[in-house]
């Protein structure tokens, strides 16, 4: 009982202090210029982190339905994705040319980065925290 209560308090404090900070990462794989795999990751940060904020972009997005931030970000992942392209993108590419055919495969990974989103006047500002 006591342990459950402690865990509950821990969970609540984590939710209170870390709810505004999220992890972002992304992976895309293309074969012959067609997307064959996409992995989109947004998750709340579980450990408090103090870092320097770097403004990535401001988007015309407003949370009119008052969705939880995580849910809102997941819903608008495609909109916020271009903001993160400027961060470090790791790339692996293979191209094979045979006598009668060719294969092309590219893997692009945006490395995990902490970020915040602030809503103000129908705009959402995304800051990377590092």
């Amino acid at each position, binding site marked *: 009982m006591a342990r459950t209560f402690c865990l509950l308090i821990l969970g609540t404090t984590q939710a209170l202090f870390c709810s505004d900070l999220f992890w972002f990462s992304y992976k*895309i794989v*293309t074969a*012959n*210029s*067609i*997307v064959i795999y*996409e992995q989109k990751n947004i998750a709340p940060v579980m450990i408090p982190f103090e870092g320097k904020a770097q403004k990535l972009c401001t988007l015309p997005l407003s949370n009119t339905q008052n969705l939880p931030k995580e849910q809102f970000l997941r819903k608008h992942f*495609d909109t916020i994705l*271009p903001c993160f*392209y*400027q*961060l*470090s*993108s*790791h*790339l*692996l*590419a*293979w*191209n*094979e*040319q*045979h*006598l009668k055919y060719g294969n092309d495969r*590219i893997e*692009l990974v945006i490395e995990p980065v902490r970020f915040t989103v602030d809503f103000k006047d129908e705009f959402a500002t995304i800051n990377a925290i590092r």
Partner: protein
Amino acid sequence: MNRWFVTLLASLGLILVISGCSSKSEPAKDPKAAMYDFSNEKSFVVYGEGIAPKNTVSPAQAIALAKRAAITDGYRQLGEKLYGVKINSTETVQDAALKDSRITAQVSALVKDAAITDATFRDGLYSIRMEITMSARRWHELFAY
């Protein structure tokens, strides 16, 4: 009078000889300082292309996927320019005739601060223009660690 004139000429000649011997000292170029020189900036421009897949839920999804494929292709080309390409090639010749040819190109890169400056979609092909400005200093800041 002549004596004064000869002395003056001799003095002038001496000054000229001495000043000619002294070399103009230029500041020595420090290799580390040259590394942080902004003057040698260079822009790399690439055009990435992506194809809209056929098995999509809607045309909008097809365009979105084509755009992402184009961006990925653009990044690959930037990686080629910034880091180079590893090429492996094998050719098999049998009975004096080319039987098989394989060329494998590999790129492994870490690209930061690339900008998408233009994008067009026409006839199922998404084309984007990507640009990255690079100098010795930026290279050092972004990629050397």
